[in-house]
């Protein structure tokens, strides 16, 4: 009796496992597994639509996708790679983070795909050189990119009597003063998750010390206690001290800051173009009518113009089980202009494919695109420009600074201590 029970349990288990197995190997259907962080308001619906289009034009392909929350993704992909069970492709942020995974030997170069699909012909040269090449080889297929600029509420600006957008630092301070006099907080910043504060540091540094010095600082060749960085913190501190920032920045998220500007409690926010996706879609603002964008003002004359933003792309893992099918999908995601358009509209992103018709963009996004085109340099934002452990130290500094800017010299010293540890200085 007992033995029979034991046997029946055993057979059930074996049968249960057997049911799972056949799904894995289905004849000549080409399967691609894919992990991405475009969940929820970050473009999940648009991406689903794109995959449906891919399936329609590639009926013999199966795409198994797995969306993960933006923050959880960082842990998830690490575990999958370390466990040698990676997806074929995954979404990742171009810059220091891709470099980190490339250096760890977890990604496969895609130079052959680059040639065969002619990707050089569909991308702006600045994106090719800045975002796709690591250690001399192509690794990343750009999917969408963003530009961080000053998004402002047009009505609030008009009510405060601002007729011209600021182009210089002095004009910018004047605008802030006018907004403050009109009873609104000039600038909203939601630095609860730290990263939204980085654009202030990035632009202040790029507009004073310039892109070359910044690249040195990001690579550990310059010091956080240098006079160039001290000056950035002093300029930033002046804005906080004058009460231009909405109070308690660390209590809010970037969407909260967006809400403050949308309802007119604050004048502007320095944020990436994904804000337009949130404003147009969730909040229901009309681009160009309710809000617009202007570039971060010039501080020092003669410093090369730079724009800041992230590039999202797809990378192929070194141990991909379906590498050829995965490459086909990667090429499709960039070269199919319809998918690129769906993505740009759905996420509030700029399409890296130069053949995408600009008619798909809102007037604000066209302005953003023009600003990017006119710039000399496209720089990744801080947490993508410097290596992850360093980025943690810097992001901590920004949050501390927004809480109490008076201690900036201590914060810089602490950050430099982190840099010494990270870069082995």
């Amino acid at each position, binding site marked *: 009796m007992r033995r029979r029970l034991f046997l029946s349990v055993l057979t059930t288990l074996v049968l249960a496992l057997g049911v799972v197995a056949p799904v894995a190997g289905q004849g000549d259907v080409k399967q691609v597994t894919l992990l991405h962080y475009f969940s929820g308001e970050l473009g999940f619906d648009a991406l689903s639509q794109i995959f449906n289009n891919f399936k329609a034009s590639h009926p013999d392909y199966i795409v198994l996708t797995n969306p993960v929350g933006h923050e959880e993704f960082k842990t998830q992909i690490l575990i999958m790679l370390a466990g040698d069970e990676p997806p074929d492709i995954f979404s990742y942020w171009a810059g220091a983070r891709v470099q980190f995974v490339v250096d760890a030997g977890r990604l496969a170069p895609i130079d052959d795909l680059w040639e065969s699909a002619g990707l050089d012909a569909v991308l702006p040269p600045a994106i090719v050189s800045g975002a796709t090449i690591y250690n001399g080889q192509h690794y990343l297929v750009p999917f969408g990119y963003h530009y961080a600029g000053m998004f402002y509420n047009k009505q609030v600006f008009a009510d405060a009597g601002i007729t011209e957008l600021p182009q210089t630092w002095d004009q910018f301070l004047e605008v802030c003063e006018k907004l403050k006099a009109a009873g609104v907080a000039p600038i909203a910043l939601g630095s609860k998750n730290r990263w939204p504060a980085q654009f202030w540091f990035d632009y202040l540094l790029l507009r004073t010390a310039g892109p070359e010095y910044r690249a040195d600082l990001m690579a550990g060749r310059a010091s956080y206690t240098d006079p160039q960085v001290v000056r950035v913190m002093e300029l930033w501190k002046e804005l906080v001290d004058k009460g231009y920032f909405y109070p308690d920045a660390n209590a809010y998220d970037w969407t909260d800051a967006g809400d403050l500007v949308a309802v007119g409690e604050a004048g502007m926010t320095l944020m990436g173009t994904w804000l337009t996706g949130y404003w147009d879609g969730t909040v229901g603002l009309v681009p160009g009518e309710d809000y617009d964008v202007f570039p971060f003002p010039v501080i020092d004359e003669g410093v090369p113009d730079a724009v800041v933003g992230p590039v999202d792309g797809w990378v192929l893992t070194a141990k991909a089980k379906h590498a050829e099918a995965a490459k086909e999908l990667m090429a499709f995601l960039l070269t199919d202009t319809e998918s690129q358009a769906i993505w740009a509209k759905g996420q509030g992103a700029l399409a890296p494919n130069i053949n995408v018709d600009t008619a798909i963009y809102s007037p604000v996004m066209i302005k953003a695109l023009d600003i990017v085109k006119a710039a000399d340099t496209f720089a990744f934002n801080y947490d993508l420009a410097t290596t992850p*452990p360093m980025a943690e130290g810097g992001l901590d500094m920004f949050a501390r600074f927004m*809480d109490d800017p008076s201690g900036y010299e201590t914060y810089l010293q602490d950050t430099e201590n982190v840099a010494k540890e990270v870069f082995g200085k």
Partner: protein
Amino acid sequence: MGKSLWLWRIGFLAVPLSVYTVVVVAPLLYSFYYSLTDWNGFSPNYNFVGLDNFQRIFRDPLFSNAIENTVIWMIAAIIIPTGGGLFLALMLHEGVRLANLYKSLFYFPISLSLAVIGQVWIWIYQPRWGLLNVVLREVGLGQYARAWLAKADSALPAVIAAWSWQQIGLAMVIFLAGLTAVPTELTEAAQIDGANRRQSLRYVVIPMLRPASIVVIALAVINSLKSFDVVYVMTKGGPFHSSDTLAMFMYNECFQKYYMGYGSASAVVLFLIALVVVAFYFVWQMRAMETIYE
């Protein structure tokens, strides 16, 4: 028969033991192993660095900060849920009207995950329209309204308060169970001997609750050592590490900075601390049991 019974015992034990080995023992041993390396989590290659990680950890201000916060958490965990739970249990045991309703209400938070509780308390602490600040302003204490989770001096207490809100219900239930185990003969005898209610509480009921208190305090200490989820949801250890706990520190080093080896070293230290606490608790419990049943 005897032999086949043994086979059955081993067979049944093998299932939980193998699961335990795979999900607990093996990862633990791996942590020990990786704590001696400079592995970054991504790379298949790494170097052995001996005890470097452990030397570094005791110089790391973020680590001592996390230790400090965890100790604060532990002390708060011993005082707040234990005190609050005991108070509620005594009140409800006295036979308040609708006692069962209150019991269910106070126990209700236990059925929620800490992630949900964290999110609800984020709303309570919201600086502009959160319940706490709104109430403070309404009753004329507006000057105390603040951005609770965004300030370094209030973030940790605010998170602990949210966590305690759940833990009090748990402590209450354990104390209630303990109270039903107190024989009424004892309290009656004390009354006949002329003890008033306070005295009978102090000298009869509370000493009889000792086994329950041990369970409550042990749970509080163990839960405080592994406090992570509610911190992750509410502050991610911020602002600037003011609410970091040891588990949060470990997570940041491993998964944000990709110092997998170094993060593993902190896991080992956390394990050793937990081991000391558990050993201490175990000895204490054995002694307590002896005195009770002697």
